[in-house]
């Protein structure tokens, strides 16, 4: 589903990703862990098409198509969703309007009929329960004045409505209370299916108790330095990253 080969990427002329390989097959859940500043958000940004990241070599294929050739909106329409580490506030645009515009844009791309207001609201209502979102949050401007946890829940709510094939979650668990963490995990688990995949970036083993990964990778200094099963996360929790880190080559 997602094939990343020897990916190198710069931010502000500084190389952040230094030859990264990752393969994600349908149905799998991958967890990416790693120290602060190692390039996890950069990887998510490259996959979702953020322009500030300049890819200098390597390739990223999604279902066999060259992702790097696509605009961010095309990637979304192809079924990629990024839950942001820092969701953006957009005053003056309501959550519902925003989601309807997004959903219909994706549906149009997929050759489906656009949903009218009634069908859309029915869909929204069914997903609201899953994440325990209330009307007020939905009618407010996108993320405006939302608490940290509400923003994260809103990301997963958007994911549930847009129903992507590949979901990238960038530290969605950070800043969540226990109940919210369970809601978010439910949202993600509800999406799991044999033809979908999830890549989650996290610092904590705890999320992985609720969303059990098939693979755990350690990203350090721009490369995947170790991969393993879910036990690797426990090992990291106990030992930290220092035992893994490679000396950085100039």
């Amino acid at each position: 589903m997602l094939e990343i080969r020897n990916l190198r990427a710069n931010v502000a002329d500084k190389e952040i990703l230094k030859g990264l390989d990752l393969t994600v097959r349908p149905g799998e859940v991958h967890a990416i862990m790693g120290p602060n500043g190692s390039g996890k958000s950069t990887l998510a940004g490259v996959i979702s098409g953020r322009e500030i990241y300049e890819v200098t070599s390597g390739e990223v294929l999604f279902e066999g198509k060259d992702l790097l050739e696509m605009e961010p909106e095309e990637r979304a329409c192809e079924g990629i969703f990024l839950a942001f580490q820092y969701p953006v506030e957009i005053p003056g645009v309501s959550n519902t309007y925003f989601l309807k515009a997004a959903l219909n844009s994706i549906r149009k791309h997929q050759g489906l009929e656009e949903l009218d207001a009634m069908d859309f609201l029915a869909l929204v209502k069914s997903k609201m329960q899953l994440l325990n979102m209330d009307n007020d949050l939905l009618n407010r401007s996108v993320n405006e004045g939302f608490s940290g946890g509400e923003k994260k829940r809103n990301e997963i709510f958007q994911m549930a409505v847009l129903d992507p094939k590949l979901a990238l979650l960038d530290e969605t668990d950070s800043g969540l209370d226990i109940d919210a963490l369970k809601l978010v995990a439910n949202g993600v688990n509800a999406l799991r299916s044999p033809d979908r995949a999830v890549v989650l970036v996290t610092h904590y083993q705890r999320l992985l108790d609720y969303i059990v990964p098939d693979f755990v990778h350690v990203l350090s200094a721009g490369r995947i330095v170790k991969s393993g099963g879910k036990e690797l996360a426990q090992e990291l929790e106990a030992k930290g990253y220092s035992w893994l880190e490679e000396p950085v080559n100039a």
Partner: protein
Amino acid sequence: MTTATKTDQCFNGLFSSFHEEAARRQPAELTALRDAAFKQFCATGFPSVREEEWRFTNVAPVERLSFELAKPAAGEISPDQVSLAGVRGLDSHEIVFVNGHFSAELSNLQKLPQGVIVCSLAEILREGGNKTVSAELGRQTGFDKSAFQALNLAFVSDGAFVHIPKGVVLADPLEILYLSTGGDQPTVSFPRNLIVVEEQGQLTVLENYEGVNAGNTYLTNAVTEIVVRAHANVDYYRLQCEDPGAFHFGSLQVQQEEQSNFRSHAITLGASLSRNDLGLTLVGENCEGTLNGLYMIGQKQLADTHTRIDHAVPNCLSHELYKGILKDDARGVFNGYILVRPDAQKTDAKQTNKCLLLSPTAQINTNPQLEIYADDVKCTHGATIGQLDENSIFYLRSRGIEEHDARCLLTYAFANDIIRRIKIEPLRNQLEDIVLVAQDVKAKPSTLEVK
């Protein structure tokens, strides 16, 4: 020293014929005032860009032209055109002027409550004026501060006179509609409004300037004076949708007495060159004054807004939020002056100007000017100038929304921050539609709600 320009000569000619004729239908004291105002105008002439207040706005395009006084043309306007220009679907009292002249046929003033006066200023003056008019007309604006105010006063002829008696609430909004037809030659009109809301009175009023024949050149030089007495409450809306070839110079001067509340929302969309001067003087304690506005212009339009808030007494609140959206080669000017006099302790004044530049050739000059002579006050100001936020654009795109649509939606949202504050729902909807069309947003964001 000023040299007589073509326009000075033109206005000299206009004035001598107008002055004599108007003297026959106006009280003598006003005739004398007009005469003095014109002398003042002749002494100063049109403002030049060397003057601080006019640094960024060159009125040479106005000076180059020869104007004639705009003639009554109510016959050329159909009631359909009036309802199209007004706010659709709004139950309102309507006073309509065509080329600055009152039209009884096009107006709708049948349902005014007992005691409320909304009428043509010309008619009042023909009857010799009344106590309120003689006391208030020209009192706030005078003619020594601005050439355009002087010129307007010199040519005072018609406009709306509104009087809300003590304790009276005018429930439906009042629309003051100025339609301009223009003509083969450039024409000029001088609308003059006087609005007095007595103690505990309440008024919602919309002043609306529209052109009906795109392509004509005309000048609107309008002055409005508003007196808000103690405990009175006024919502004032101003909509400037003049034709693309028009020039608009508009002044609003408001005086607030104690415990009164005044809110202004000024929307500037039209005219090739427009200048708005809005002045708010807080003379009674515990007042709240709001000046909000939106200018959304493109091509080679210029929109200049100068606001002036004078905190003369303690314990008053003023808020000011102006937003601009500039496309193409448009130019915006915003100058926000706040004066806090020595006595005005516990003043709370907040001013914000935000501007979006949607093209590399659009320009804005923004200048907050705070003069504070009291020590126990809270005064803040902020100005932001910029493009749309790239993080927001990416966020929308990452959800599948095309870049063009994302930009349009964010621009709409920027403007809607002002529009959503408008309390007259049909006006709000109409303006929202204008912004949606201008910004190419297909569906209406405000209508979708989860219940």
